[in-house]
């Protein structure tokens, strides 16, 4: 975004030309014959008609995107100007690795006809920079000598895979229908470097898609349109023009700002209404004022042109009426006078040209018409039955703005709404108006140096501060809005403010219509200025005072490398799986579609590691612009307390906000089912899937259902241990959505394990070959768990180190060390435990076996065993122990789990079983007996 700041000096004004000729009832769109563009402060108007070649604003100022305009259209409200285009690519936009396919050095002015599908061909018309001349050159003809710099040449087409000879038919219709106009530079060269490509250096503009920003913008347009209710659009005709001009003026705010400022007519309207509603909300007014100021900067002519006849008519009324009410001396008859006045005074061209008029009242005029427009156009809704008498109402409305009683003339719809609350507030406004007071925003701009204005502003600021304190909804950030210098308006922080203020407004007037509420919820995620909650603690572990010591010798080095946590340079032995997953995810990311994959395998077979590796590679690829960017999110069923927390975690990782599980589910649902601007593919890794199981399985259901949505662009990779998990625990509708893209990770074979260790050690010679083989064979035979294998090797290095007389003199890890480590880790400790038990404990175990043999069962009560025990101790010549002691012995064996005991409240009657096989016990006791 930052780079656009420099270009903000140039503002372009876009305006539809001609009558709307299509009315697509379904899409509620109008087609237009041409689009007029003009630069602020310039008289020259460029007209763009379908069929012409145009330059489209991209992220490279020198090389704007080239496309052919196919169609111009807008929606009812005329707010969103859109265009359908056929893209052309510059060579710099072709992916780096595919450039060689051209097989010759490109002509500097050469472009390629784009046949790919990855680009949205619907763009925001306001990103059009100007026209350009494109000439089709037949395949075998050489390029003409570089004559005009404004001419581009097309020879080949590009379909994202290969360059093909361009079918002349594709070019023909255009050349036939529109005479190639000499590329009329839209802007004076000093104003815009974008219009004319000056030089063609080898700029790496290696985006496979024409322009993400353009696409994003286009997306945003469609999104906002979707969120708008059709019925209201026409009410905003005038306002849309305002905002449109504003937008063209400040391009930085393009997508977002537009989204916030223009796409919610309802909110917008309220915004203006609530100006009066509460003086504390003056920042909204300030904002409006600023917009207005921006407009006024442009020539008055433009303004008048822009406004459709009816609009301007009503505006004139409003303008003419308001000064009168506020005690201004402007003659009523001069309709446009106040407008002119304002614009002039603000432009500083002649601030005192109309000296007899109070400066503040000028500004007042600037504010009021805008507010009026809304009212007027709400009344003039096409759906409104009484459209015939709208003019009357229009006339009435402005006046009403100044008298307190608003009811009589308000359209009925207004009455339904929370007008009752606003009414007194409007009264406040009226009062302020009469005092010429609500001008404080202007007073703060450097332009208004006048004493009276400053005084007034001071007073109002005081008032505002007071009110601010009472109004908690308005955060501190909004305060800044009172200083709406143009610069600030353009700053990116402004969009946040716009968001927040809008939200405030929306919240204030909730219940007005459903659109508002939808809007509110939709908007919440993008709200960045969160009030400082007590829970803003940053999770971190205190850092150490002494840095960690680096490995000193070979064995330590080997140990560090063998630690499971160390990320290996490569993942050996999982090439096939890697490739499969990579292809799966890559294709989904490329297509912008979604899908699910289920990966199973016993623990320690590298499932998660492989996926992380895939993601790392994909991320690298997307950094190199080979694939579109994507988001990677990881959740783990084990790392949450409840399956429903999955929603919370996903949402938090997506948007960084904390909400409750239900709310998060709703937000995610919305996010994945609605189209949204600049949506990138999300890759979601769900580890330990089986723990997300709930009785109704709605968490799993949602996880697998979202990818199937059209706009979701979600790829879900799930991991679990069991291969048949879908069949076992999932109900049909969940299993069906998971689909059949399954993959199973087999346990590692001993060769693979050996390879893993070798690759991890990476030429650090610490192990004997045989020793490695022993470890890997042993582990492969048992579990094939790579973690286990690495742990054993690590332990072996320790043993090796300790066995050496001096740590530095320790040699290679030998078979003996590995054997010892294996013994330590695999050998059951039961036998040692029995050998180390006390004499009475051993005797008791023998008694247990004797009793088992007597009964022929594997179970006996303590009482029975104790009888045996007593007999045995007599045989052994030991003093028989008391029952309490015997019970204590039994409990000790039970605590070690050499014996399995029933609950101890059964006392003597508790049943005793061996947890070890009888043979083991006898084997362990043998030396003792001898």
């Amino acid at each position, binding site marked *: 975004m930052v780079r656009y700041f420099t270009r903000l000096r140039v503002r372009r004004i876009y305006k539809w030309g001609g009558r709307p000729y299509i009315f697509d009832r379904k899409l509620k769109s109008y087609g237009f014959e041409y689009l007029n563009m003009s630069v602020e402060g310039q008289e020259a108007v460029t007209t763009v008609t379908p069929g012409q070649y145009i330059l489209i604003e991209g992220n490279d100022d020198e090389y704007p995107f080239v496309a052919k305009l196919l169609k111009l259209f807008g929606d009812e409200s005329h707010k969103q100007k859109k265009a359908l285009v056929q893209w052309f690519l510059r060579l710099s936009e072709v992916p780096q690795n595919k450039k060689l396919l051209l097989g010759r050095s490109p002509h500097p002015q050469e472009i390629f006809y784009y046949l790919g599908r990855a680009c949205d061909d619907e763009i925001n018309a306001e990103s059009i920079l100007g026209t350009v001349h494109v000439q089709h050159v037949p395949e075998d003809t050489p390029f003409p000598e570089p004559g005009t710099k404004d001419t581009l040449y097309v020879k080949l087409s590009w379909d994202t895979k290969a360059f093909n000879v361009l079918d002349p038919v594709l070019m023909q219709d255009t050349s036939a229908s529109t005479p190639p106009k000499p590329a009329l530079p839209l802007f004076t060269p000093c104003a815009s470097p974008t219009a004319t490509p000056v030089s063609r250096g080898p700029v790496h503009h290696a985006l496979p898609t024409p322009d993400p920003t353009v696409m994003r913008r286009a997306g945003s347009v469609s999104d906002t349109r979707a969120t708008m209710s059709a019925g209201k659009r026409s009410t905003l005709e005038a306002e849309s023009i305002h905002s449109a001009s504003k937008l063209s003026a400040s391009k930085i705010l393009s997508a977002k700002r537009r989204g916030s400022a223009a796409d919610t007519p309802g909110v917008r309207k309220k915004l203006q209404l609530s100006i009066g509603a509460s003086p504390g909300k003056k920042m909204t007014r300030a904002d409006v004022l600023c917009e207005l100021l921006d407009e006024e900067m442009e020539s008055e002519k433009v303004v008048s042109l822009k406004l459709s006849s009816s609009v301007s008519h009503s505006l004139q009324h409003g303008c003419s009426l308001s000064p009168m009410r506020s005690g201004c001396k402007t003659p009523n008859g001069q309709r446009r006078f106040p407008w002119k006045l304002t614009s002039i005074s603000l432009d500083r061209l002649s601030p005192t040209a109309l000296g007899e008029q109070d400066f503040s009242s000028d500004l007042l005029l600037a504010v009021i018409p805008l507010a009026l427009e809304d009212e007027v156009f709400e009344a003039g809704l096409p759906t409104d039955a009484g459209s015939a008498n709208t003019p009357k109402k229009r006339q009435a409305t402005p006046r009403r703005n100044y008298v307190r009683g608003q009811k009589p003339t308000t359209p009925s719809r207004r009455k339904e709404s929370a007008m009752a609350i606003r009414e007194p507030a409007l009264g406040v406004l009226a009062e302020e108006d009469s005092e010429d007071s609500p001008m404080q925003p202007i007073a703060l701009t450097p332009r208004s140096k006048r004493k009276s204005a400053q005084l007034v502003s001071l007073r109002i600021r005081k008032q505002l501060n007071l009110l601010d304190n009472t109004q908690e909804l308005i955060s501190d950030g909004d305060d800044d809005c009172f200083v709406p210098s143009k610069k600030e308006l353009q700053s990116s922080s402004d969009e946040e403010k716009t968001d927040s203020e809008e939200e405030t407004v929306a919240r204030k007037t909730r219940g007005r219509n459903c659109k508002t509420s939808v809007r509110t919820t939709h908007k919440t995620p993008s709200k960045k200025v969160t009030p400082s909650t*007590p*829970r803003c603690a*940053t*999770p971190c*572990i*205190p*850092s*150490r*005072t*002494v*840095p*960690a*010591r680096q490995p000193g010798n070979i064995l330590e080095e080997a*140990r*560090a490398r063998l*630690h*499971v*946590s*160390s*990320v290996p340079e490569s993942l050996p032995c999982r090439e096939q799986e890697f490739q499969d997953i990579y292809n799966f995810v890559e294709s989904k990311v490329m297509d912008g579609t979604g899908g699910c994959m289920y990966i199973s395998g*016993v*623990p*320690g077979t590298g499932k998660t590691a492989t996926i992380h590796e895939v993601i790392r590679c994909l991320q690298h690829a997307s950094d190199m612009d080979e694939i579109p960017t994507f988001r990677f999110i990881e959740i783990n069923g*084990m*790392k*949450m*307390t409840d399956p429903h927390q999955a929603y*919370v975690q996903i949402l*938090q990782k997506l948007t960084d906000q904390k909400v409750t599980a239900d709310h998060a589910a709703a937000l995610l649902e919305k996010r994945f089912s609605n189209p949204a601007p600049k949506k990138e593919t999300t890759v979601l890794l769900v580890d330990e899937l089986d723990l997300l199981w709930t009785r109704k399985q709605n968490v799993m259901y949602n996880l697998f259902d979202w990818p199937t949505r059209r706009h979701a662009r979600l790829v879900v990779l799930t991991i679990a241990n069991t291969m048949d998990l879908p069949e076992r625990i999932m109900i049909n509708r969940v299993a069906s959505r998971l689909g059949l893209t399954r993959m199973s990770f087999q346990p590692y074979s001993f060769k693979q394990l050996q390879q893993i260790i070798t690759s991890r050690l990476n030429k650090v010679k610490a192990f004997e070959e045989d020793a490695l083989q022993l470890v890997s064979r042993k582990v492969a035979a048992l579990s094939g*768990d790579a973690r*286990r294998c690495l*742990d*054993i090797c*690590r*332990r072996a290095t*320790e043993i090796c180190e300790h066995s050496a007389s001096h740590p530095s003199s320790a040699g290679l890890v030998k078979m003996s060390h590995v054997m010892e480590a294996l013994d*330590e*880790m695999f050998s059951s*400790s039961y036998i040692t*435990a029995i050998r*180390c038990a*006390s*004499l*009475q*404990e051993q005797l008791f175990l023998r008694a247990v076996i004797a009793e088992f043999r007597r009964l022929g069962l594997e179970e006996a009560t303590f*009482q029975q065993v104790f009888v045996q025990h007593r007999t045995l101790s007599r045989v052994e010549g*030991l*003093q028989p*122990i*008391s*029952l*309490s002691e015997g019970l*204590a*012995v039994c409990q000790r064996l039970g*605590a070690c*789990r*050499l014996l399995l005991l029933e609950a101890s409240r059964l*006392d*003597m009657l508790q049943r005793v079983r061996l*947890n070890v096989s009888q043979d083991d016990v006898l084997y362990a006791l043998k030396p003792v007996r001898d």
Partner: protein
Amino acid sequence: MDNIIRKYLIMTLFKYGYIFQVQMILRERFCHQRLPEKPVGMESQHKHLLELLRRTAVHGESNSVLIVGPRGSGKTMLLNCVLRELLEVKDVNKNVLPVHLNGLLQTDDRIALKEITRQLNLENVVGDKVFGSFAENLAFLLEALKKGDRSSSRPVLFILDEFDLFAHHKNQTLLYNLLDVSQSAQAPVAVIGLTCRLDVLELLEKRVKSRFSHRQIHLLSSLSFIQYLDNVRSQLSLPQDFPDTKFYDEWNDSIKTLCEDQLVVDVLQSHYNSSKDFRSLHLLLMLALSRVSASKPAIKPTDLLEASRVCMVDSKANILHGLSILELCLIIAMKHLNDIYEGEPFNFQMVHNEFKKFLQRKSHSIHNFDKPVVIKAFEHLQQLELIKSMDSSTAKIQKEYQLMKLLLDHSQIMEALQKYPQCPTDVKQWAMSAFG
């Protein structure tokens, strides 16, 4: 004369002071309030654990280890010794964050998480309170651990006492996460589990198990009796830095002779045969020590014998001594029933019948009791848990017909009868007779 008395008084006062000191020193030892200088008989385990923790502290290597050994084998002592030694190292001192958890205290993950957060003093801790829900706490802790890395963040030592109880927590979430951190490139942690269960690994879920490094340090003492005896001597001996050398010599000599006494050796041998762990030994020595006073400034062999008698006493036999004759008779009747029906359960009616038969045949000393009195006696026995009801649904069956079992061994009954003060002879005879 006065002088002599005064001197004697001073002597006794001093002696009293010394005895007091001796008791202080030895009690600290026996009650595990002071760690021994060096863990006895577990040098290799000590070295292993120390090395492991040192690597975590110094190199930032994550590890997980289980210390397994029967109760009283010195697991906690070993760990505490290692920690003490570790913290004495200069550059480790301020670098590790020990977190102590106990499976008996932190009975679920929610509590455990709060405790971890509190001990780590993360930023969501205010004062002594941890804010946030369970899920938030978990996310916060994991986030905190994730942010750390091997070289820069302080190693955290998670000490999980009664490790096996953590394995019973729902989904083993805590264990999974701790062990997962120890196996991934996050903040260095060492997870040290203490447990007495040999089969603890079988409790772990397989994905948790896979993340555990499978290091187990077994504390299975293979102490021979000679070593045991040596240990007793060193446990009772006074330390070198005792203020009065004369008393020190006297005391240590007396201990030396004590340990050579045959009676003492026998007592200790039977104790050793019963269990090798130090905790029971400490209990024994403690009892003996408490008999030491200024007038008897040394442990005598009889003290030890008496102490061992207290330790090994059969609790149920003691209860029997306090029973009334009627209750004793009921017990004997039950014993006969057990003989007749080979351990099948009985009910009150059967016992009462048996008792009545005895009364009819040869009741010289015992007169007839009313049935309610007998029932009362029977209930008393039940309350003492000398007999236990076999039916789970007690409410449905009448008291008299509830099936019961005797929780006493025949030998215990006979022994108790022998020792019972003024037991009527006919009762004794009845008890010894083969037939009811």
